[in-house]
């Protein structure tokens, strides 16, 4: 737990990594999150039918990715820059022990693209490809003209 608190700037109620199980810096990290009925967000998601919101599984993977860095991020958070793909195959419930695995897919400078998987007792709950910017505040240039969207 000390490793977790030393590495991530996140705190209650937004710390979503309990323990780091395996760590190959720059390459791969496996961490764990125990879901408890005491999680504050379960009060509203959903009343009488508590389940972990899918977006929080993405947050769990992003926080796990912070451990790809050898150095502590201290006060500098990992910025989730882009969700390239995300599939939610099954819900996570209170009582679940979630295994969070991330692997580096590509990296350049402070940008890191990762493949992440959330599993529970061998069942895949969520897979995602995320782009993270680490170790420096995000400075975005003006938005790009893309197909099918912005003016």
């Amino acid at each position: 737990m000390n490793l977790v608190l030393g590495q991530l700037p996140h705190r209650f109620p937004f710390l979503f990594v309990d323990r780091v199980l395996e760590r190959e810096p720059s390459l791969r990290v496996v961490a764990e999150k125990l879901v408890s009925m005491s999680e504050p967000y379960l009060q509203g998601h959903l009343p009488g039918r508590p389940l972990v919101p899918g977006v929080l599984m993405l947050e769990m993977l992003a926080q796990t990715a912070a451990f790809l860095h050898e150095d502590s991020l201290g006060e500098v958070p990992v910025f989730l820059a882009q969700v390239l793909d995300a599939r939610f195959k099954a819900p996570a419930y209170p009582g679940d022990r979630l295994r969070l695995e991330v692997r580096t897919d590509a990296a350049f400078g402070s940008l890191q693209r990762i493949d992440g998987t959330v599993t529970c007792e061998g069942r895949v709950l969520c897979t995602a490809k995320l782009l993270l910017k680490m170790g420096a505040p995000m400075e975005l240039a003006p938005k790009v003209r893309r197909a099918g969207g912005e003016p």
Partner: protein
Amino acid sequence: MTDLKLAVKEMIIQRLKLEDMTAGDIEDQAALFGEGLGLDSIDALELVLGVEQTFGVKIEDEAAGLKAFRNVEALTAFIQEHKPA
């Protein structure tokens, strides 16, 4: 437009999914990031991978990226200079 310059523009359009643009819309001197083409800093990784996979040229670090990604002209010159024989 040289073949390489055209290929660079087509790679940018394809990798960054600028589907409403054609190579003719991208000016050689226009900045890729910020003003000009208007790419986000987070597009840099996709561009690095595009240059590597399309032209076999590796952009090692942010300093090299800063130089290569100034505009299409600079990127074409960078690829020309570093491409495998």
